[in-house]
């Protein structure tokens, strides 16, 4: 009866995008509010969806639409939500809305504001983001294998353009790497999905999940799980298939990073919960130890990579590798607890890392660089509010109880302590121990980052000084440190210095040779913005975008029952034969 809701969730952003194509001239004056309005309606629909959802029956798909689409292929337009997809749909709608709020709330001249004709192509940006939203929400709603794949692929193209057009200096290489890598993964996944179709003759996820692998031999299941798993693992990303991520994150604009970390990575892990584990349970049992092993390697590897990182955005990107390791470890346990933990960590990571990328973007806009040594410390003195929110986000990300990051990690480890009966327990105990060590390393790199960036005496003058005497402020900042103040006065020297120093210690951290010349880009992006303008503390539009995330991080941290009671019945159903 409420089946129109999922359709409307897809139709509204799609309509918004199409209208932009039809009448560009008419919409140009209202462009700033346009995306906000459409994503706002989508968010409202998502909230209605959450309100009409029958929480007593979270295990089964609700509000379903099931129409034949391409009868010849047996492809059906089958949408619906259950306890697993509902939080992700709402998260997607929320993050997209917040991105639009971030873009259109503030005054147009603020740094990083892309919705101005001067700095970007506003119409194209709104169009791209709306199409992206269609693909993301569709992925979480789809209940048909091919439909899922279609939406999964739809997402890639707008994200490619987002990085390639509005990205940073090395955007070209990063965007090509992103799209080729993920497309390659998708092809492998498609083969796996087709194998399932060939063996069972249906593409319906609901029917396949209820069959729990009936009709497929063990060998086929293992093969299909491996193929689908590789496709999903590229997107997640799982070690060692992660190297597209740091580049994509570093080069993407702020909203791109936020959506990439907040939603796109979740599509990979969601696929494990929606397709791989319920449809191919026997394959899952065979592959799970490998999945777990790669997951814990990813946790430790990601944390260590963060520890030696110079660039803030790159560090947060690598932290995603570590956090997604916890998610994959949870899935690998094949227990209700573990998968619950994985799904919780999924949502928590979307909120926290989304916030972290917003913050990294804000820092990069203000300082002109995200290179931690160049930031020079003392942010709590210069920008106290920004520093405080950064501290909050870092503490949340390292998994302090009371904030959202904790419960997912804890439950994933608890799942590994007692994995499914079919799995080798000793091996998973080792995974748990390594995962625990990874949690310590996670704390280490976040605290070291906070220490480097927020603590210490500021290398640049305090905020009040900069606000009253902008000109001498630059003069003071120049000789002291290699901040952007210095970059303005002596670009060649600094660029050369950075390029020289890199091969010695951290050269490996920067795969693209152009990166060494980042200071030159600083001059391009903020040509003559006065320092006082650039170094203002948190601004209104930022607050609008961040406060909902902060509130939700606190809410889920203090009241984890909200999410867990939603996912538990659904997870119990999907595990079916295994549990």
């Amino acid at each position, binding site marked *: 009866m409420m089946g129109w809701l999922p359709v409307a969730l897809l139709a509204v952003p799609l309509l918004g995008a199409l209208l932009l194509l039809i009448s560009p001239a008419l919409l140009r004056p209202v462009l700033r509010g346009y995306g906000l309005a459409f994503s706002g309606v989508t968010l409202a629909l998502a909230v209605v969806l959450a309100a009409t959802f029958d929480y007593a029956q979270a295990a089964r798909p609700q509000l379903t639409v099931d129409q034949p689409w391409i009868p010849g292929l047996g492809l059906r337009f089958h949408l619906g939500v259950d306890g697993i997809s509902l939080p992700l749909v709402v998260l997607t709608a929320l993050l997209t809305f917040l991105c639009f709020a971030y873009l259109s709330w503030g005054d147009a001249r603020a740094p990083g504001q892309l919705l101005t004709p001067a700095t970007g192509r506003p119409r194209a940006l709104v169009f791209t983001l709306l199409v992206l939203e269609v693909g993301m929400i569709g992925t979480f709603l789809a209940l048909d294998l091919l439909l899922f794949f279609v939406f999964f692929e739809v997402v890639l193209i707008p994200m490619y353009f987002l990085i390639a057009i509005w990205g940073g200096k090395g955007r070209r290489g990063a965007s090509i*790497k992103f799209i*080729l*890598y993920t497309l390659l993964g998708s092809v492998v996944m498609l083969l796996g999905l087709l194998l399932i179709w060939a063996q069972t003759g249906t593409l319906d996820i609901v029917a396949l999940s209820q069959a729990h692998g009936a009709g497929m031999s063990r060998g086929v299941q293992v093969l299909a799980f491996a193929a689908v798993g590789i496709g999903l693992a590229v997107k997640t990303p799982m070690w060692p298939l*992660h*190297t*597209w991520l740091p580049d994509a994150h570093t080069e993407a604009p702020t909203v791109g990073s936020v959506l990439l970390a907040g939603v796109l990575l979740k599509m990979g892990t969601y696929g494990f919960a929606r397709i791989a584990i319920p449809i191919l349970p026997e394959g899952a049992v065979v592959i799970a130890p490998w999945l777990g092993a790669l997951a814990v390697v990813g946790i430790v*590897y990601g944390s*260590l*990579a*963060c*520890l*030696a990182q110079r660039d803030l955005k790159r560090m947060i990107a690598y932290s995603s590798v570590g956090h997604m390791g916890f998610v994959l470890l949870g899935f690998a346990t094949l227990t*209700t*607890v573990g*998968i*619950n933990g994985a799904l919780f960590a999924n949502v928590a990571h979307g909120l926290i890392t989304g916030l972290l990328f917003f913050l990294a973007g804000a820092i990069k806009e203000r300082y002109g660089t995200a290179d931690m040594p160049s930031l020079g*410390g*003392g942010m*709590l*003195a210069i920008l106290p509010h920004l520093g405080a929110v950064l501290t909050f986000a870092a*503490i949340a990300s390292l998994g*302090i*109880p*009371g904030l959202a990051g*904790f419960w997912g990690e*804890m*439950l994933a*480890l*608890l*799942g590994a*302590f*007692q994995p499914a009966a079919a799995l080798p327990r000793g091996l998973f105990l080792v995974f*748990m*121990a390594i995962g*625990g*060590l990874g*949690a*310590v*390393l996670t*704390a*280490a790199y976040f*605290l*070291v980052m906070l*220490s480097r960036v*927020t*603590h*210490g005496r500021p290398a640049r003058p305090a905020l009040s000084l900069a606000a009253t005497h902008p000109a001498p402020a630059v003069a003071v900042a120049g000789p002291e440190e290699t901040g952007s103040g210095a970059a303005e006065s002596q670009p060649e020297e600094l660029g050369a210095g950075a390029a020289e120093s890199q091969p010695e*210690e*951290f050269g*490996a*951290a*920067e*795969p693209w040779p152009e990166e060494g010349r980042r200071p030159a880009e600083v001059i391009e992006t903020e040509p003559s913005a006065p320092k006082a303008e650039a170094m203002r503390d948190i601004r209104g539009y930022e607050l609008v975008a961040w406060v909902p995330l902060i509130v939700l991080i606190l809410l889920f941290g203090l009241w*984890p*029952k909200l999410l*867990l*009671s939603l996912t*538990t019945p659904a*997870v*119990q159903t999907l595990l079916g034969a295994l549990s």
Partner: protein
Amino acid sequence: MTTFPLLAVLLPFAAAFAGLLLSRRPRLRTPGPPETRGAAVRSRAVWFAVTPTAASAVLAIWLAWGPGFAFIEGASPGEPVGRTYGTIVTGGIPISLTLQADDLSAILGVLVTLVALAVQIYSVGYLHDDPRYPSYSAFISLFTSAMLLVVYAGDLLVLYVGWEIMGVCSYFLIGHWWEDRANSRAAVKAFLVTRLGDVGFLFGIFVLGVSAGSFRIDDVLGKVPEMSTGTLVAATMLLLAGVAGKSAQVPLHTWLPDAMAGPTPISALIHAATMVAAGIFIVARLFPAFLAARPTLDVLAVIAALGMLGAALAALAQDDLKRVLAYSTVSQLAYMAGGLAAGSDSAAIFHLLTHGAFKALLFLCAGAVIHHIGSNLMSQMGGLRRTLPITFVTMTVGFAALMGIPPASGFFSKDALLLTMERALTGGRLTDAAALLLYGCALATVAVTGAYATRAWLRTFFGEARVVALPEPQPGTAHVVDVREAPRTMLVPIVLLAIPALLLAFAGGLHLDLGVAALSVVLALLGGGVVYAFWRSDPVADPSRLLGPFLVPCERAFHVDSLYAAVFVRPTLALARLVVRTDDRVVDGAVRGSGRTAQGLSGMLRLVQNGNVQLYVTGLLAGVLLIVVGAVVFT
């Protein structure tokens, strides 16, 4: 009354949020210079800080009124007061949100809230000019809330939540003066070392909870008799990692002396009286499980024996007054751990209470001294008994309690601990070697404690006043003021804390073993007497020269820090750099390599597409020929 534990936890929790968010908001409209506005912000923050803590203290006292000192006196346990506020489904073992006060929780709740209240009031004076006072007091409130959650939790995972939040509050407060990188480093170190232990602690909770089928403490303790010894040893050993981390025991003790970088009231509250005692508390809470795991008790005894003596020797060689007290805390906590290993949780908790009172008192007095001098170093103090008479008297009480001089409270609690350790020699659960080591080290530590307490007392309050040019106040030290004694907000808590430090033992009922008591007093006086003799011979020189060639190792705390840096920290950082290099050259190198290979192959194919029509036609004909031949051959 069943909601009192919840209220006691929630009040400071709400106060923390109010202090952080509302102290400066809504913006005060008072016109005038920024100083008066700052004062208005401060006074609001003071209200947010002190009132809820005071209310929590009232609730905690109310909860403790019934049981009183029943736990220490060994009375049969009463019915816990509290209730369960629902459960969190996890898909496996649920988490039950239980908050309750039994005999043990009730008295500890009083200790926590009263010391927190004293510290909150004291901080009003101590951080008078600090612009970040609102966030500082808010973190103290959050800490109080977390500690009360640990104390009142009826479920192990709920307890773990409080346990970790305490850690992060400790991190924030140690790093309160973050302008100085050293403070920031100390905060990071404290958090990471305790976090390392906490991971073990969490796994220990998993072992206990999964084998009991429940995370509720009552259920777990009820299932202890049914668990196998292997399970119990594994669980308690893992828990011990968390205990060692939080209570600064060997080998995870190195963070506590560095944690003295925080403001002195924080050292009094978190790093002396309450948080560091949480490790002892958790062992007492799960004591049946520990008693059933004898190897764990042996390990605990050895850790305690090494820790108490080593830390006491290190305390004897420090010049920084706060570091003396920090090592003294490590040593005293090891006493409690030794008491637990020897089989008496009531003696350990008794010493925890008296130590909480007298160590908080000592730190607050040290704060007053530092406030006056503007330096932490004892080489710059001396002769302060005339200028700071009240501080002198109260600190003397504190040192007497620390040394175990009758009738101070520390004398009775230390006597109870020594008695337990002595009994463990003859018939306890410990192996003979461990019991002997423990008792021997405990007696030696009594003497060394007497020595370092006397040294600190003499060098601070006696001798000639040193004339030192006052440096510009650095972050990390208090501001220098011109008053003769500290302001009243600082003195009142000191005087009030001196009362329990002196008399607490009389409230808890006296049990005295004359032989052990006489021995310990003689040893303490012996240690003090030797130091006094050295001091009399040359009041200006440091009596720690009596350590001779051991002075430098003791001062460096036996070089454990350098060892850890060489064995753990630097290899980890090297590994991190290696990972970054590998990620670029190998993992990503493979990706880029495959891209280049594909490009190279396509480059070879491109050679064919050269636009030469003759070549194309040749290729076409060759293809047709091949197909025809193939068709003829294969059909």
